[in-house]
């Protein structure tokens, strides 16, 4: 019964298990609904889907199964981000990029062409200059440098879907920022170190018995504070330049970390840490903070996370005077090493895909300095980082 339906859902990437199928069958057996496809739709959604993010995907799979709607094959890898369809996105383009779009016949034409290409293309594609895929110079796809804004895929890859541009009821639910931060929070939860701090609210039985006995049997209650996560965290964010492409991801990480850790301090740097850091990005030039002050302010028990794409000229790391912004007396690596020496629990989160790291010389240098403790800014990367930091 409904086994094909179950497998259709599974194939569409819904996290369904046998238990849910059995529940659905039980409900049908008890005649919760009877003889109406609409009711069956509601009932099966109720039983099989446990997250509103998946409603959209379920709708498609259901449609596919019951109306034999044609599903676009092989496009699972790609998705048009929602804001891509939003005209406001146009404002973020540089004049040059706009000119390039105009050269292709304007925004509408571009969308039109995209639809056509999606239909023509039947398989995953990489490189080249026409098909949609990763790398290459086609205006569609991501990772390439034909207008960066025109990208398909990226952060929302888990929401694989076909016919994405069609208006669907639940599409808004699957691209809320909060959903992203929630899963990051879960990943950050691995960074835990319990300690008893705060108000004494819990009865300490052992101590109560001990002191009552000492007290010749007269009750002497002992309380102790509950266990809390006492991890202290210091974060250094790379801002500006090539990091602009990752702003959204970094914002998510920051907001997740902010709500997850009580003791969180953060500073900004550009490309590499030098003699100055800053706290407020808009006032970085009139309120620079001496890195030595930061070094001396926080104790060794702080965990340190650097967030940056590690992509820069190697001279910025290795040579005095190599910084792109100012005349630095000491090389970037010297400063970085000072920080690493002070805080032995450290890690670097890199928003760039891990398989691209080896193409940048500076990334390789940093990886070596960090003794391999560089992690990609994906959920599993954050999780691995959190685990290594709490070890």
């Amino acid at each position: 019964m409904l086994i094909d339906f179950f497998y259709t859902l599974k194939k569409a990437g819904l996290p369904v298990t046998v238990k849910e199928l059995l529940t659905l069958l039980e409900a049908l057996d008890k005649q919760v609904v009877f003889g109406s496809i609409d009711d069956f739709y509601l009932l099966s959604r109720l039983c099989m889907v446990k997250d509103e993010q998946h409603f959209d995907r379920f709708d498609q799979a259901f449609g596919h199964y019951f109306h034999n709607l044609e599903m676009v094959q092989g496009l699972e890898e790609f998705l048009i981000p929602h804001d891509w369809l939003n005209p406001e996105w146009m404002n973020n383009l540089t004049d040059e990029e706009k000119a390039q779009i105009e050269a292709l016949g304007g925004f509408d034409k571009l969308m039109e062409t995209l639809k056509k290409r999606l239909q023509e293309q039947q398989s995953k594609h990489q490189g080249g200059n026409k098909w949609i895929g990763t790398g290459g110079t086609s205006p569609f796809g991501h990772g390439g440098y034909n207008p960066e804004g025109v990208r398909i895929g990226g952060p929302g890859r888990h929401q694989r879907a076909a016919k994405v541009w069609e208006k669907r009821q639940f599409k808004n639910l699957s691209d809320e920022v909060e959903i992203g931060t929630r899963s990051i929070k879960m990943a950050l939860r691995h960074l835990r170190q319990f300690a008893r701090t705060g108000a004494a609210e819990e009865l300490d039985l052992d101590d109560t018995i001990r002191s009552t006995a000492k007290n010749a049997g007269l009750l002497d209650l002992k309380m102790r504070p509950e266990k809390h996560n006492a991890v202290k965290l210091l974060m250094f964010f790379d801002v500006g330049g090539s990091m602009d492409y990752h702003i959204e991801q970094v914002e998510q990480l920051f907001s997740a970390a902010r709500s997850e850790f009580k003791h969180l301090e953060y500073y900004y740097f550009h490309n590499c840490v030098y003699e100055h850091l800053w706290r407020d990005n808009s006032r970085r030039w009139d309120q620079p903070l001496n890195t030595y002050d930061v070094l001396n302010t926080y104790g060794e028990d702080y965990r340190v996370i650097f967030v940056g794409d590690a992509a820069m000229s190697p001279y910025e790391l290795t040579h005095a005077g190599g910084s792109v912004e100012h005349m630095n007396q000491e090389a970037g690596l010297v400063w970085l090493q000072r920080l690493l020496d002070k805080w032995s629990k450290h890690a670097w989160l890199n928003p760039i895909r891990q398989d691209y790291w080896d193409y940048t010389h500076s990334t390789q240098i940093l990886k070596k300095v960090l003794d391999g403790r560089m992690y990609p800014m994906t959920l599993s990367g954050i999780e691995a980082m959190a685990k290594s930091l709490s070890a």
Partner: protein
Amino acid sequence: MTKFTGSDNYVATDDLQLAVNAAVTLQRPLLIKGEPGTGKTMLAEEVAAAMGKQLLSWHIKSTTKAQQGLYEYDAVSRLRDSQLGDEKVHDIKNYIKPGKLWEAFTSDEQVVLLIDEIDKADIEFPNDLLVELDKMQFSVYETGETITAKQRPIIIITSNNEKELPDAFLRRCFFHYIRFPDKKTMQAIIKVHFPDLKKDLLNAALETFFEVREIPGLKKRPSTSELIDWIKLLVADDIPLETLRNKSIKEAIPPLYGALLKNEQDVEMLQKMAFIMRREG
């Protein structure tokens, strides 16, 4: 068995009715999610009222532990009583305080149990209740007795999406997402609350309301409960229809907008928008 079809003061859409009825029939917990202010908590009250059952509410806070829903053992007062030579002290049962789940399980008649805002608690909280919700029984460690549900209660759980719930927990629940009501449902909802409201005032108010909701970039979009508060104010203040009608929010800020927007940045945005539109217009 009586079917839940909404009530005189609660409008339940078809899919919500089906969800409630399926959960009641199959005796599984029903997990309700949705935008704040779409009536998640009210649902449990209405289900209880419609089916003539008693409602037990367990409101979850960030410090709530799963154990507190089962029972709590008050060791401190037992120790104190032992010092005072109280007779009560010989029976440990005197110091076991049943929680909401215990109450729901041992009640003589089937009850509706609301576990409100389960996402407020620690992430381990739902996991700690897995077996209890599945088997509807738990054992009391201190006395060795097992509490089994006489009747499986109807369990309604609400979540505001602040934390992700564990998969194992989700598998045991029915899941329903209350969508933001469309215009037709909204009219029905308002009719329930203000049966005497004039039709043109209602239409004008709804139009303004949906227009406000569509302003891009609002931090907190107004929801049903805000709309109802707002209409209440409109009626109380006797705002003339003309102030609402024929005026889009682009021309004038809606009267008593404080009831709709609860965030000063949102209010500022609305004012700025009105200002720009007026200047351009």
